C-alpha cells in the first residue's frame, strides 16, 4: 500500500509539468491515443464509465471533468467528493479538467453550478465505479458484494480483513468497458441515477477543511498558469485593437515597425491586426509603434451617465421577463394606507481580473492545440474550429488556469487571437493582452435602472410590491462570436438584442418575500451599438442579482424605517421560506450583536458616525444574510466599512475553509463594487483603461469579515461561488442610512454622492 501512495503535492507538481512535458513530444496528439480514449476524434461519451474515471496501477484514480478551477478551490472540493464516494484517501484523486480531448462537456464553469450540478454527476460516476469495483472484488474474493467493505481503495471481507484486494490490483490501468446510464446534457446531464450513493451523514472527507491542492505551487512560482505555458520555438504575439468602438480599417503602415528587432511579422485579416515576434518585448513595442488608421466610428451609445439611464428608461423593451405577477396590484395600491416609490441606479462594472487574458496556440495545417483559461473549453473549441474552418475534432483546447474569473472573460477571445496568429506564421504563438486591452475589452456587468413601488396596509404589512429592473442583454454572452472572428469578418456582431435567454437574470427583486400582490419584471432593453464596442456586456458575479438586491433590500429598509420597525423584524414578517430565512437572519443578527431598534440611529455627535444595516438574499436556494457596520465621515462623505457579518446556508458543505475563503472574497469584492467601482464612458467606449482610473479595494479599506456557516446536508450542494456578494451592497447602503439618515440610491457610494445626499436630503435623523 505505502509503495503505491503518491503524495498529493508530488502529484500536482507532476500534473503541472504535464502541460509543458507533453509539448516536448509535440502538441498534436489528436491522431494518437489520448488518455483513456481510443482513436483520433474519439470523444468521451458520458455513458461510458471510462469517460469519467480511471484506476491507475499506481494507486491513483484519475477523474475527468470539463469543470475547471477558476481560482476558487473547487477542484479540491470535487476531489473530496470523488474520494468520498470511492472510499479512497483524498491524495489518490487526480483531476484532469477542461481538456476537450479527454473530458465530457458538462457545460462551462459558471453560475455557482460546479458543485451544485457537476458535483452530483461526478459523485454518481464514482458510485457507479465503486459498484463495478465491488463486483470485481466479489468475484475475486468469492464473497457476495454486500459482505465487502472498502478502506482507502482496499476491498476486504467484513470481519476478515486479511481477505482483501485493492482497486488497483483489480483494475489498475485497465478500462472498465462498462456502460452507465446518462441522459441529458450540460447541467441537466444525469449520470447513473439508479446507483445508490453514500448518505451524507456518513461522509468523512466531504465536509472537512482539506487544504487546497493548488496553493503550495502557487506560493512558490511552480504552478503553471495559462500565462506560464511555453512551447519550444514559441513566438510572442500582441493584438492591435482600438480601445473604443471598432470602425473600418483604412490602412496599416508596416514601415512603422521596420526598425523594431525580433523578426516582427504583421498579421492582418480584415479588421484583425496583430504582430508576432521572437520576444515578448519586441511584440509589445511593435504593437505600440504600428501605425494603424481607422475610419471615424459611428457612435450610437449614450454619451454619459444621464443619457444612459434616460435611454434605459425610455427605450422600448424587446423582452419583458415577468418573474412574479400575482394578486391585483393596482387594487392593492389603491387600498393601501401608505405607498412608497424609489428609483435605484447600478453602474456598468468590470470583472477586473488581475492577470490579462493569455493563450498559447499551436496551429499546424488543419490541426490546432490551444492552452487557455476558458470557463468552457468545449465552447472555445467550437469557436476556434469555426474561425479556422476545420472540424471540431481537429481542435483541442486544454485548460490552463488563468487569474481569477468572476464571469465571462476574454480567455476565449484571446484563444482566437492566438489561433489566427499561429496559423499565419506557422508556429506556436503566445498572446497576452495588455492591461488597457483587458480593462477595455473585458465584457462588463450591465448598468441597471430599478424602480420599486410598495403599498402598506394599516397593520404595517406590505400588501403590494412592484419591482422593475431595466437592463441590457449580454452582447458578449458565452458562445457568441468572439472578437477575432468578428474582426476577421467571419461572424457578425448581431443586432445587439439577441434575446435567446442570455440576460442578466431575474432574481433578488423582492421575490424573497411572498407579498399578496406582487409583480417583479425585468425588461431587457436593446443595445443599439452594432459595431464592436468595449461596452459589451456579459455576466459579472451574481449577474443582476447584486443590483436588484441593492434596490429591493434598500427599499425594504426604507419602508421599515418609515413604519418605525426594526429592519430585521420587518423582514421576518413576510419571508417565503420561513424556516431557513428566519434562521439566517437571526443568526447574522445575533453574531453581529444586533440590537433591536428603528433605523436611523439616534443622532450622534462628531463627524464620524457609525451605523449598521442588514440585507438578505436567495440564490438558487443558497441563502445569505449580511450585517454591515459602517462609519460615515459627515465632513467629506467618506464611507468606511468596518465589519461585515455573514450567515451563509448553501445546503451541504464540501469544504468549510474553502467556503469561507469564497465568502470572504465575495464580501470584499462586494464592498469594493459598492464603494468604488463605476465604468466611466462616452459614446465611443470606456475611459478607464488602467488601475488608476478604475481601481478596486485596497488593504487599508478591507473590513473585518465574520462568517457563520449553517449547514443543511439534506439539501445537497446549492452553490457558493456568488451567493454571498448579493446582500452586501444593500447592507452597506442601509448602514449608511442608519448612521447619517440619508439614503443613497446610486452605486458606487462615493464620498461625493454621500456628501451630496447629506446636503440635499432632509435628514431623517432622530425622527
Amino acid at each position, binding site marked *: 500500500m505505502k509503495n503505491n501512495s503518491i503524495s498529493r503535492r508530488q502529484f500536482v507538481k507532476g500534473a503541472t509539468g504535464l502541460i509543458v512535458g507533453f509539448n516536448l513530444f509535440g502538441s498534436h496528439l489528436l491522431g494518437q491515443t489520448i488518455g483513456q480514449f481510443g482513436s483520433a476524434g474519439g470523444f468521451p461519451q458520458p455513458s461510458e464509465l471510462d469517460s469519467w474515471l480511471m484506476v491507475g496501477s499506481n494507486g491513483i484514480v484519475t477523474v475527468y471533468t470539463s469543470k475547471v478551477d477558476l481560482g476558487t*478551490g473547487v477542484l479540491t472540493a470535487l476531489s473530496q467528493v470523488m474520494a468520498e464516494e470511492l472510499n479512497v484517501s483524498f491524495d489518490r484523486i487526480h483531476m484532469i479538467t477542461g481538456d476537450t480531448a479527454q473530458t465530457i462537456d458538462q457545460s462551462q464553469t459558471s453560475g455557482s453550478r460546479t458543485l451544485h450540478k457537476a458535483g452530483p454527476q461526478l459523485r454518481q460516476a464514482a458510485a457507479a465505479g465503486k459498484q463495478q469495483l465491488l463486483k470485481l472484488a466479489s468475484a475475486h474474493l468469492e464473497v457476495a458484494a454486500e459482505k465487502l467493505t472498502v478502506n482507502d481503495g482496499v476491498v476486504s471481507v467484513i470481519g476478515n480483513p486479511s481477505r482483501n484486494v485493492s482497486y488497483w490490483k483489480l483494475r489498475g490501468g485497465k478500462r472498465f468497458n462498462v456502460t452507465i446510464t446518462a441522459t441529458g446534457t450540460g447541467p441537466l446531464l444525469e449520470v447513473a441515477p439508479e446507483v445508490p450513493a453514500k448518505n451524507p451523514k456518513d461522509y468523512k472527507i466531504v465536509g472537512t477543511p482539506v487544504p487546497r491542492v493548488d496553493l503550495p505551487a502557487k*506560493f512558490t512560482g*511552480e504552478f503553471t498558469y495559462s*500565462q506560464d505555458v511555453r512551447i519550444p520555438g514559441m513566438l*510572442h504575439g500582441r493584438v492591435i485593437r482600438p480601445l473604443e468602438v471598432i470602425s473600418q480599417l483604412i490602412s496599416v503602415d508596416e514601415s512603422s515597425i521596420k526598425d523594431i528587432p525580433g523578426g516582427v511579422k504583421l498579421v492582418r485579416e480584415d479588421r484583425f491586426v496583430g504582430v508576432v515576434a521572437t520576444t515578448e518585448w519586441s511584440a509589445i513595442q511593435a504593437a505600440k509603434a504600428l501605425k494603424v488608421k481607422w475610419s471615424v466610428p459611428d457612435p450610437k451609445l449614450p454619451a454619459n451617465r444621464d443619457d444612459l439611464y434616460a435611454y434605459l428608461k425610455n427605450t422600448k423593451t424587446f423582452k419583458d421577463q415577468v418573474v412574479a405577477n400575482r394578486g391585483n396590484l393596482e387594487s392593492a395600491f389603491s387600498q393601501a394606507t401608505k405607498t412608497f416609490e424609489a428609483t435605484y441606479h447600478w453602474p456598468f462594472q468590470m470583472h*477586473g481580473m488581475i492577470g490579462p487574458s493569455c493563450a498559447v496556440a499551436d496551429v499546424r495545417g488543419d490541426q490546432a492545440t490551444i492552452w487557455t483559461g476558458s470557463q468552457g473549453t468545449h465552447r472555445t473549441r467550437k469557436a476556434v474550429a469555426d474561425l479556422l474552418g476545420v472540424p471540431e475534432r481537429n481542435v483541442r483546447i486544454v485548460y490552463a488556469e488563468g487569474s481569477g474569473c468572476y464571469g465571462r472573460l476574454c480567455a476565449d477571445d484571446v484563444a482566437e487571437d492566438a489561433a489566427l496568429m499561429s496559423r499565419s506564421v506557422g508556429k506556436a504563438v503566445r498572446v497576452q493582452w495588455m492591461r488597457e486591452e483587458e480593462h477595455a475589452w473585458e465584457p462588463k456587468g450591465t448598468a441597471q435602472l430599478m424602480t420599486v413601488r410598495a403599498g402598506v396596509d394599516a397593520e404595517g404589512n406590505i400588501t403590494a410590491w412592484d419591482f422593475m429592473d431595466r437592463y441590457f442583454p449580454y452582447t458578449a454572452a458565452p458562445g457568441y462570436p468572439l472578437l477575432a472572428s468578428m474582426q476577421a469578418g467571419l461572424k457578425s456582431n448581431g443586432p445587439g438584442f439577441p434575446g435567446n435567454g442570455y440576460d442578466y437574470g431575474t432574481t433578488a427583486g423582492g421575490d424573497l418575500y411572498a407579498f399578496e400582490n406582487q409583480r417583479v419584471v425585468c425588461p431587457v432593453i436593446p443595445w443599439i451599438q452594432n459595431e464592436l464596442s468595449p461596452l459589451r456586456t456579459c455576466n459579472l458575479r451574481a449577474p443582476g442579482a447584486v443590483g436588484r438586491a441593492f434596490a429591493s433590500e434598500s427599499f425594504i429598509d426604507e419602508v421599515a424605517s418609515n413604519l418605525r420597525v426594526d429592519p430585521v423584524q420587518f423582514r421576518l414578517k413576510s419571508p417565503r421560506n420561513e424556516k431557513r430565512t428566519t434562521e439566517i437572519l437571526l443568526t447574522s443578527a445575533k453574531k453581529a450583536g444586533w440590537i433591536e431598534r428603528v433605523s436611523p440611529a439616534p443622532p450622534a455627535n462628531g463627524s464620524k458616525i457609525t451605523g449598521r444595516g442588514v440585507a438578505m438574499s436567495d440564490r438558487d436556494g443558497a441563502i445569505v444574510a449580511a450585517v454591515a457596520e459602517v462609519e460615515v465621515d459627515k465632513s467629506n462623505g467618506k464611507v468606511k466599512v468596518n465589519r461585515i457579518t455573514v450567515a451563509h446556508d448553501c445546503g451541504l458543505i464540501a469544504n468549510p475553509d474553502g467556503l469561507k475563503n469564497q465568502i470572504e472574497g465575495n*464580501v470584499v469584492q462586494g464592498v469594493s463594487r459598492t464603494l468604488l467601482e463605476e465604468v466611466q464612458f462616452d459614446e465611443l467606449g470606456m475611459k478607464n483603461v488602467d488601475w488608476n482610473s478604475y481601481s478596486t479595494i*485596497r488593504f487599508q479599506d478591507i473590513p473585518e469579515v465574520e462568517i457563520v456557516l449553517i449547514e443543511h446536508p439534506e439539501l445537497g450542494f446549492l452553490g457558493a461561488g456568488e451567493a454571498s456578494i448579493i446582500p452586501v451592497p444593500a447592507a452597506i447602503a442601509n448602514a449608511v442610512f442608519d448612521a447619517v439618515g440619508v439614503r443613497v440610491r446610486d452605486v458606487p457610494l462615493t464620498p461625493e454622492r454621500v456628501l451630496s445626499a447629506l446636503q440635499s436630503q432632509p435628514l431623517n435623523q432622530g425622527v
Partner: protein
Amino acid sequence: MSRITLTVNGRARVVDADPSTPLLYILRDNLGLNGPKFGCGLSQCGACTVILDGRTVRSCGIPVSAMQNRNITTLEGLGSSTQPNYLQKAFIEEQAAQCGYCVNGMIMAAKALLDKNENPTDYEIKEALNRNLCRCGTHLRIVRAVKRAAREKVGTGRI
C-alpha cells in the same frame, strides 16, 4: 542586443537581450522564472514584484540594462513547494489565496517588510501591501499569513 549579467536568487545569470527590455520579461521568458507575473505593465498592481538589493521593485517598469551586477530575488528564491520558506509556509497554513495570480507580489512585499520589521502591526502590514491589488478578495487571509510568518520568524530566529 546586449550581454547583461545579473544575479538572480544568488546565481549569476547572463542574458542576451534588448537592453530596454523590462526585467519582468527577462525573468519570465529568458530565465523561466514564473513567480513574477504580468498584471499591468504600468507599475500599478504589484503582480510582478521582485526584491532588488533588499527593496521591492515592480519588475515590469525597470529595464534590464539597469540590472547589471544587481541582486534580484524572486519568489522562487524563497523556497519550493517541498521546502517552502517561513512566509510560503504561513501562506499555506492560512490558505491565503484564491486564484493566486497576485500572490507573488504579496509574498515579496511581505518579505521586504519582515526583513526590516520583525513584528509589524496590522496597520504596518496593510500599509506595506496597500499598493498591491487582489481581485479575489483574499486580503484578510494575506494579512493573517504575514502575521503568522512574523510570529514564526521571531519564534525560530530564521531569516
